[in-house]
């Protein structure tokens, strides 16, 4: 194999076979050379090797994640028992008992252990996450303020961030703030004595996976954390996201920070790229898919938490559905009376209608029971608020007995139930005050 340079300046790789041509005495007379241009083949081989390496790396990370998850699982169980015993011991002792202080210290240590366990669970995607659309620029600004307070004054923190309101990301805000913090701490450690740390946030329309222009609707946020520290060797770069890999002295880091950052970013559908040169510094780019900003809440501003004691009757034939609706509304502060059929509902209305503020009624009760119950109710109290629940897509509010906007059509979420119940009660109180 040999490399040649063309007149254009490009390099090509040739695979050449050289065959001696002999004369009649067996002595080499000529040399026949056959060259094949294998430049593209070599490029493909290199690309394949890189892919294989990435795959091996990904598999290794997955295996370690599995192991870490197993350890965290076991720890969580042990910690649950420890917390329960601490609570038991505290309940048994007088508040002034000498052992109380020790128990507080044990509880503090157990809380710290839970923090480490949660970090491991985050790494293996098992920690609970709460994803909502949030403004990444706001979140990063908050972290930078925090960083300026904790980094030594010898490290200057520069920022260059997209305006607030432009880059929305669907994710767990606190987890992504943790990513900024972990990357910044790593950068701090790279800047040995004094130096600079720059955090920037920009929009990109380039898909980080393919390095080509993303689709018309696809937008990416690129968060960069750059330092002018010691930089890394290619070997260190290849291992930097492995859990427990650290170049810091013993006791100065768990080696989990960057692996957790990597795990969080991957879980958010993003990607991390690293560029580093020994002696010149490191630039880490986090690419995250953007989402649309959340729509303004359409909740009635008056829909506040209800006063305790407002009573609602739930008439629902399916027992499990009824239980879930009951608890959902109970946790909103309502008193709930639950019944399974129209007969029980009629009996309850006769005895305690004055105490009830609202009825949530299954409009699909068998034998037209819902319509009968509604007509009985309307005869005695024409404006009594009723929220209807139905699986029928075309039911028109039971011939006008239930206002169209107070009919919940299946499938519906519990948050919609809360909203429609609030609307019905607000309307009732609005009518009263008018």
């Amino acid at each position, binding site marked *: 194999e040999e490399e040649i340079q063309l007149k254009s300046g490009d390099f090509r790789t040739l695979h050449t076979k050289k065959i001696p041509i002999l004369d009649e005495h067996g002595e080499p007379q000529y040399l026949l050379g056959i060259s094949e241009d294998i430049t593209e083949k070599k490029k493909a081989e290199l690309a394949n090797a890189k892919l294989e390496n990435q795959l091996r790396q990904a598999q290794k990370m997955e295996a370690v994640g599995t192991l870490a998850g197993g350890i965290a699982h076991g720890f969580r169980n042990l910690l649950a028992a420890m917390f329960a015993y601490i609570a038991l011991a505290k309940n048994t002792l007088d508040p002034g008992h000498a052992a109380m202080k020790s128990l507080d210290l044990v509880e503090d240590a157990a809380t710290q252990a839970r923090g480490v366990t949660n970090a491991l669970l985050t790494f293996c995607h098992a920690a609970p996450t709460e994803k909502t659309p949030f403004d990444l620029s706001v979140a990063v600004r908050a972290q930078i303020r925090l960083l300026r307070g904790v980094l030594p004054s010898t490290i200057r923190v520069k920022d260059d961030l997209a305006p607030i309101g432009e880059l929305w990301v669907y994710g767990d805000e606190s987890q992504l703030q943790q990513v900024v913090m972990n990357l910044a701490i790593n950068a701090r450690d790279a800047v040995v004595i004094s130096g600079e740390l720059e955090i920037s946030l920009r929009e990109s329309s380039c898909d980080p996976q393919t390095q080509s222009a993303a689709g018309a609707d696809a937008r990416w946020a690129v968060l960069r954390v750059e330092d002018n520290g010691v930089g890394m060797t290619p070997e260190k770069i290849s291992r930097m996201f492995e859990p427990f890999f650290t170049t810091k002295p013993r006791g100065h880091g768990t080696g989990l920070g960057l692996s957790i950052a990597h795990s969080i970013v991957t879980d958010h559908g993003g990607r991390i790229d690293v560029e580093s040169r020994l002696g010149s510094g490191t630039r880490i780019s986090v690419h995250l898919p953007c989402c649309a900003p959340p729509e303004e809440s359409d909740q009635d501003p008056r829909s506040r938490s209800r006063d305790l004691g407002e009573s609602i009757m739930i008439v629902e034939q399916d027992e499990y*559905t009824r239980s879930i609706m*009951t608890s959902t509304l109970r946790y909103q502060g309502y008193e709930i009376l639950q019944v399974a059929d129209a007969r029980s509902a009629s009996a309850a209305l006769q005895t305690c209608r004055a105490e009830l503020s609202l009825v949530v009624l299954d409009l699909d009760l068998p034998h037209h029971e819902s319509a009968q119950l509604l007509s009985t109710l309307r005869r005695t109290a024409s404006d009594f608020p009723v929220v209807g629940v139905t699986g029928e897509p075309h039911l028109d509010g039971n011939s006008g007995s239930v206002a169209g906007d107070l009919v919940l059509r299946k499938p519906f979420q519990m948050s919609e139930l809360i909203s429609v119940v609030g609307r019905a009660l607000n309307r009732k109180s609005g009518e009263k005050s008018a």
Partner: protein
Amino acid sequence: MMSSIRILLVDDHELVRTALAERLERERYFTVAGCVASAEAAVQESRTCDPDVILMDIDMPGLNCFEAARQISRFRPDCRIIFLSAFFHDIYIEQALSVKARGYLTKTESPESVVEAILEAMSGGVYFSKKVRDRITVDVKGPTFPTARKTKLSTLTPRELETLRYIARGMSKQEISRDIGIAVKTVDRHCTNLMRKLDIHDRVELARFAIREGVAEP
């Protein structure tokens, strides 16, 4: 006078079982009627100890806890089952709802939450954390839990999903058949179907997939 609420505790970690039992026994109206270490034992014990509430760990070796819940509901339809887990996965919530669980608690919640969950279940309600409760969807078949991302996993039937969990634990088809109480041929059919649906034809890869998707614990 209110009669006491009989509770059966099911967890393969003795420390958790004992700590929880001691805490619950301190409540005036609670009686810990039994403590067992597996889902199979829970099925047996619930026949004899007459529990009002079963607190059951999600990830235990042997019989799957959701299958155990299904079996118990057949002969004790009024028994309220509350699941306890070290983890919070959409897939678990989905399965808990499919067996009409009365609650789902993670082990990081306080012992007081366990007490609250039992009382809520006994008063005709359910106990799920707020973020779970708000996402529960009622459709014509009853309450369900729409997972945020619909993956290949959502194409599996409950039985296929259960079979996948057992495979991830390294159990043979014979062992799965014995634990669930179905024929080996049926297990074989579930295996074939789930491999086809997931386009994974290797048991090790299936186990890795199950762990990655949160169907089984590592």
